[in-house]
């Protein structure tokens, strides 16, 4: 469909341009309402009592002393949950409140409501819980081996899945292997969990204003726990201050609604930063063994792998994360034979679930580290080994699924390689110590610093997998030259609100596009995750607008005696492609209301069978990263100098937004490479604050040089692939490879650096 692409001289905010976000001015002026900004007179505060133990039996709970504190309005425990006592995204294994046993530090036990947050804190401190501390399960291997008693009725193994492809006994002339570990990363969105629940009179229903990634999924889980009909639970998207996977699961939703319904008064809850670390799921820590077999020329013959993901206390999306991890074992490379064994297990660590990259981050750190080892073993350049194995459309994956997506892997690598390297020498032309590893610490001596270059290339599935129909719904209403769009797509910062309007302008030839409130008063949009909303909700908006346009053409055709099939949109006009007619859309729609609602579904997928075979994924995107780092080998300090990337985006609907996703994703990949890790000792989190959990700042993040590889994907409704996740996937191994490259230059010795985040001690002490 090319007729609707603007051809007029006037610049219009259509697809392919980068108009300003519709919520931009409100956000810079501070008037945009985040979920934590919702309150009002008479609204009570809610707060959660959490377990201090990773594993303990609850002997007794005495809430009496909390009730005696002036200003306390409610104290609720497991006894006060009217409906399902548990919830969960895939299996409902997580209690609303712990009743008999706690399984992680931070597990909710009770909530209170009071007039002031300080009153809440005192009330929580007054609740007396007697625990019998139990032996925690902290070693994932013990969960697999069955040597620890089950810590949950569902058992200690969440999912075990194998993949067997081709000949398991074939070997290669060159064999490299390694064991890789990734620490637990936190999404660390800035806008803490917050909600406002407003009960209906008589407790017959509730309206929840919530920062979430998936309104309808929250609603279904909420209704079950509250024992209310789904229609009685209405959700409205409160302004979302970032998400990155951490808002896909229930956190405070049920608690907040329970308090509001019990009290018949609005209740707000807002997590502290410490509580946020405890209250949402994290990226799975992983231990991955991989063995690559290759020909002497570096062509992959077989990959063997074993994945162990620590799911923490509750299942969340662990089974899907595991699927993603093992099905991305090969990365963006051809692989004819594979033997993969994957485990996602339950422990008494913090629960893990979705985070940007969703299992592929873990797989990619392992396969990219392996590719570098393979290159070394074959005496090849890191770029050359990747080019030799680069996947192409039509290749068959280790799951037996054919690669039907556009797969410009080679082009991503070549375009990345062609991007300029930094022109600044170590320390910069101005010898500013701020440019050195350690920065403001002024610790590194310029003469000791070594520069390295490393590579990472990734494949990432888009949308949900294994038979899940994660459809999206959109409604388009066209009246008097103005389009109104309605959808339940969670805008979490990624900018769907911007491209939704761009799509409507493009298809309908209108300039005025109004966005209705994002809530559950329309069908589900699915989750804002899995790099799926541009494709899915973009597809739904596009389809709804096209249906409206067809109706418009019928009207115009009837009015002018023209076959509607001859009509097209040109700029802001309806035109007859075989005649003279040209009518402005505004004029053609005067007094007319056209209203269409459409569900967009992606093509069906299958579950994997016992041997890990099946067309389980919907589509794929690809990306290459090249990192340049300066390393002080003595102190183990790293300064990332530049990240270059070429990303397969299909088609950039909003190039500025794509760049924003690329730069932001790379920052999170950098964080995992050298800074970010939730540290737990004996099941107790040690760094639940921004003082102790380190996030990349302006000074940690280098300039990004990006090239957008645009090969529109015929499967994608707008040709556009999701762009959110790939940037954070292979940026991590690229940075680690660059550190290894720098250290190799110091004394010619290769370092494993097989664990992220890489700590200064890993660099400085592994040298001995």
């Amino acid at each position: 469909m090319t007729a609707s692409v603007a051809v007029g001289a006037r610049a219009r905010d259509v697809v392919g341009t980068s108009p300003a976000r519709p919520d931009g001015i409100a956000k810079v002026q501070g008037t945009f309402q985040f979920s934590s900004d919702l309150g009002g007179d008479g609204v009570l505060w809610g707060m959660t009592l959490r377990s201090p133990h990773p594993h303990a039996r609850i002997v007794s709970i005495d809430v009496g002393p909390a009730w005696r504190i002036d200003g306390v309005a409610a104290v609720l425990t497991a006894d006060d949950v009217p409906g399902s006592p548990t919830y969960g995204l895939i299996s409902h294994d997580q209690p609303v409140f712990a009743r008999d046993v706690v399984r992680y530090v931070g597990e909710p036990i009770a909530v209170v409501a009071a007039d002031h947050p300080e009153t809440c804190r005192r009330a929580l401190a007054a609740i007396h819980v007697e625990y019998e501390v139990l032996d925690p399960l902290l070693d994932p291997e013990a969960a697999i081996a069955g040597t620890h008693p089950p810590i949950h009725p569902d058992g200690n193994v969440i999912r075990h899945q194998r993949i067997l492809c081709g000949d398991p006994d074939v070997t290669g002339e060159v064999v490299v292997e390694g064991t890789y570990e990734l620490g637990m990363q936190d999404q660390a969105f800035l806008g803490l969990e917050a909600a406002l629940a407003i009960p209906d009179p008589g407790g017959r229903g509730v309206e929840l204003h919530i920062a979430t990634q998936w309104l309808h999924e929250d609603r279904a889980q909420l209704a079950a726990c509250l024992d209310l009909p789904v229609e009685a639970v209405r959700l409205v998207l409160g302004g979302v201050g970032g998400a990155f996977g951490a808002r896909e699961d229930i956190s405070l939703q049920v608690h907040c609604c329970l308090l509001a319904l019990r009290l018949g008064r609005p209740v707000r809850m807002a997590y502290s930063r410490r509580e946020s670390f405890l209250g949402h799921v994290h990226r799975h820590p992983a231990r991955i063994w991989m063995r690559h077999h290759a020909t002497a020329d570096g062509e992959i013959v077989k990959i063997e792998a074993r994945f162990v993901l620590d799911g923490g206390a509750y299942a969340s999306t662990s089974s899907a994360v595991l699927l993603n991890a093992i099905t991305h074992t090969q990365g963006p490379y051809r692989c004819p034979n594979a033997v993969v064994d994957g485990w996602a297990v339950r422990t008494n660590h913090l629960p893990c679930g979705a985070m940007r990259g969703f299992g592929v981050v873990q797989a990619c750190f392992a396969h990219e580290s392996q590719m570098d080892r393979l290159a070394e073993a074959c005496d090849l350049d890191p770029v050359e080994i990747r080019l030799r194995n680069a996947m192409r459309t039509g290749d068959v994956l280790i799951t037996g699924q054919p690669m039907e997506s556009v797969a410009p892997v080679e082009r991503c690598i070549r375009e990345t390689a062609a991007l300029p390297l930094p022109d600044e020498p170590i320390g910069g032309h101005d010898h500013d110590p701020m440019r050195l590893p350690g920065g403001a610490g002024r610790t590194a001596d310029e003469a000791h610093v070594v520069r390295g270059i490393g590579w990472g290339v990734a494949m990432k599935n888009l949308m949900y997998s294994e038979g899940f129909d994660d459809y999206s719904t959109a409604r388009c209403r066209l009246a008097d030259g103005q389009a109104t769009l309605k959808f339940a797509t969670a805008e979490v910062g990624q900018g769907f609100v911007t491209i939704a309007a761009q799509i409507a302008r493009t298809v309908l030839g209108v300039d005025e596009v109004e966005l209705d409130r994002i809530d559950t008063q329309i069908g589900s949009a699915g989750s804002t995750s899995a790099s799926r909303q541009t494709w899915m909700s973009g597809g739904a908006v596009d389809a709804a607008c096209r249906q409206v346009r067809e109706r418009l053409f019928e009207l115009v055709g009837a009015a002018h005696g023209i076959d509607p099939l001859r009509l097209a949109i040109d700029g802001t006009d309806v035109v007859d492609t075989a005649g003279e007619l040209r009518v402005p859309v505004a004029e053609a729609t005067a007094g007319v209301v056209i209203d269409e609602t459409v569900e967009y579904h992606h093509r069906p997928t299958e579950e994997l069978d016992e041997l890990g075979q099946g067309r389980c994924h919907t589509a794929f995107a690809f990306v290459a990263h090249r990192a340049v780092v300066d390393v002080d080998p003595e102190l183990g300090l790293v300064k990332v100098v530049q990240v270059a990337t070429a990303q397969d985006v299909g088609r950039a609907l909003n190039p500025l937004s794509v760049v924003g996703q690329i730069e932001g994703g790379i920052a999170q990949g950098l964080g995992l490479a050298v800074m970010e890790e939730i540290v737990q000792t004996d099941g107790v989190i040690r760094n639940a604050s921004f003082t102790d959990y380190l996030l990349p700042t302006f000074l940690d993040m280098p300039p990004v040089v990006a090239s957008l590889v645009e090969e529109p994907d015929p499967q994608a409704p707008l040709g556009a692939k999701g762009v959110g996740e790939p940037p954070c996937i292979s940026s991590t191994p690229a940075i680690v490879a660059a550190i290894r490259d720098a250290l190799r230059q110091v004394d010619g010795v290769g370092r494993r650096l097989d664990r992220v985040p890489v700590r200064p001690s890993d660099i400085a002490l592994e040298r001995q």
Partner: protein
Amino acid sequence: MTAMEVYTLRVNGDDREVADAWLGESLLYVLRERLGLLAAKGACEQGECGSCSVLVDQHLVCSCLVLAASAVGREIVTVEGLAPVGVPSDVQRAFVDAGAVQCGFCTPGLVMAATDLLDRIPDPTDMQIREELAGNVCRCTGYGRLVAAVQQVAVARREAGEPA
């Protein structure tokens, strides 16, 4: 809660009375919950992220670390005081145009910090921008478009200030 007194804060040029407040409340809490000025955001509660940045007597501070009662007699400026609603400042406009806004939660704090930076250093180098703004964490953007926004304002102001 018990034991309150009345005190007055001068915010964005207006005297605002704070009554019945617990004296342990931070400036951030009082701005947001008592005075209804919601632009400053709380994200770490320990001065690490800068989301709550405001000016107190022209010094950029994290309002989560300042006791509200200790700001009596001082000039407090929040994002609400930078420009009227619907008439964004050049810094605010540049943030939007340059793509420096995604989720927007860090944005008010960064707008304050960038405004303060450009007032003190009208023509900052790239490194100065990064160093000066390093107290403000953004989790969405990776900072590239934020640096571009600040540079954009510096260039525009310089060009506007040059004699015709």
